[in-house]
């Protein structure tokens, strides 16, 4: 993957609404050509952060740069290179799909072929359908198409796959990967773990207006407190004391005759040598890695 210089720079951004702080010193940099995820619970400040990137909101403090430009002062230039799919933004109820795509492509100096885009998003069967008559999924796909129709260098997608069925979701992910592969930088807001893990090169986890972690998906998973869970049924009983002394073991639980140990990679090796020392056979030995869900829950809990 081609990773270049930072195309989006967010530096110490603060934003409060009516005295309530929503974004509290958020900083991150997105490299050109990556898919950068912003993950966090509802009300964490994700949307406000990307709205500052898109120039829709003016930060109270801090700076935002998109390709070196200020999205507020250089609004016109930034809109030419940044496409946005916003939450809760509709179109004129009686505007048809084809009309909307044609209209929005007229806004840009070098637009994409909107018919090709519509076909990729499965919208070509609904050209004549008015916006008000579209299904939730179709509205969402149209919104994505409009974000991409200007051939942007950066695309901001807020809650990309909300309202899409599993197949449409997979197709959309594939489209976003293709978009990235064509050199476009993607800033993706989500609270959907699977989406973040599948798509993102890096993820910033935001909670209560602050960045609580910034890493690759696997890096984040590795940070989970108990990233590895080992479970087995020993052929002979094992003393709790021996298990608790295992390096990295965070907890030891017994479920009937099954032992479940949460720990790290180191714990796995120690369990194996312990079993070998005692010549115990481990029946149905399972080692499972923590998921992004676990990491996310740990990270957002710590901040609570």
């Amino acid at each position, binding site marked *: 993957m081609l990773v270049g210089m930072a195309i989006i720079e967010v530096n110490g951004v603060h934003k409060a609404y009516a005295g309530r702080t929503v974004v509290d010193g958020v900083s991150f940099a997105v490299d050109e050509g990556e898919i950068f995820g912003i993950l966090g619970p509802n009300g964490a400040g994700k949307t406000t952060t990307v709205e500052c990137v898109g120039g829709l909101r003016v930060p109270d403090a801090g700076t935002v740069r998109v390709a070196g430009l200020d999205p507020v*002062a250089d609004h*016109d230039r930034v809109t030419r290179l940044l496409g946005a799919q*916003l939450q809760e*933004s*509709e179109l004129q109820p009686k505007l048809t799909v084809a009309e909307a795509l044609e209209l929005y492509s*007229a806004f*840009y100096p070098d637009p994409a072929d909107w018919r090709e885009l519509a076909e990729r998003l499965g919208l070509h069967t609904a050209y004549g359908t008015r916006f008000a008559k579209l299904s939730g999924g179709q509205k969402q796909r149209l919104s994505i198409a409009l974000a991409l129709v200007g051939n942007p260098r950066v695309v901001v997608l807020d809650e990309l796959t909300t309202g899409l069925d599993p197949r449409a979701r997979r197709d959309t992910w594939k489209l976003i990967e293709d978009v990235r592969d064509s050199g476009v930088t993607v800033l993706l807001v989500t609270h959907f773990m699977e989406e973040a893990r599948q798509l993102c090169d890096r993820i910033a986890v935001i909670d209560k207006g602050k960045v609580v972690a910034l890493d690759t998906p696997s890096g984040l998973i590795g940070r989970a407190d108990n990233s590895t869970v080992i479970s087995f049924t020993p052929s002979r009983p094992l003393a709790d004391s021996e298990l608790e002394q295992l390096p990295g073991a965070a907890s030891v639980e017994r479920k009937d005759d099954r032992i479940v140990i949460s720990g790290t990679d180191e714990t796995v090796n120690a369990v194996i040598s312990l079993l070998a020392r005692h010549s115990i056979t481990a029946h149905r030995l399972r080692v499972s890695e923590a998921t992004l869900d676990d990491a996310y829950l740990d990270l957002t809990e710590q901040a609570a």
Partner: protein
Amino acid sequence: MTTANPATATAVKTPAPASARRAVLRSETRLFLREPAGLFWIVVFPTALMTILGLIPSFRDPDDALGGRRVIDLYVPVAVLLAMIMSGLQAMPPILTGYRERGILRRMSTTPVRPSALLTAQIALHGAAALGSAALAMTVGRVAFGVELPGQPVGYALALLLSTASVLTLGALLCALTRTTKASAAISSVVNLVMMFTAGVWIPVQSMPDTLRNIVRFTPFGAASEALDRAASGSWPGLAQLGVMVLWTALVTFLAARLFRWE
């Protein structure tokens, strides 16, 4: 702070290409024509009302109380003003409020075209529809009821343009004052009734009792009604009437611009 250096701010303010704004106007025109109810109230209703009144025989007889003129003569300017009110105050505010409420303006502000392009397209379309409807009322008045065309066409056109301007700015102010489409439609209907009254829809301004007439004269449509009436009968609209319209338009424009919120 994010306050831009004024020099850089002006340097990068390249307006969206004219072709983009034309595309907005084209698409809004298409949408405008997809609203049969709106078109009915703006274009058909004022002339239809005038025609119905014109079919009452006594309204076609000269009346000494009106200085020898017929009721139908007074109703042509009323239909003209009704067209303005239907367009600028009844039809337009809920559309503009809806554009804001549904996030259509916000969506557009992430593109190189400013959302103001949508508002100006809508204002222009409603202004054009009002003037078209006014022309229809005058034509039907002339052809069906022999109502003379304005004796002072330039003065009439001036009064017409000023009343269009005041009704459109008033419509924009209503949109600035309301947050939801529902509220906008509700307030619009109340304001509508008042404006229709002052424009003389129920009693022509010329037939109102003196005290009432003196109050109504200071409202935008009372003034417009008198100005149109004078120009119709061949004299120039009075400075007082034009002044009242100009002042109202200026005041309302100022308030609308101050109070309008994009989100």
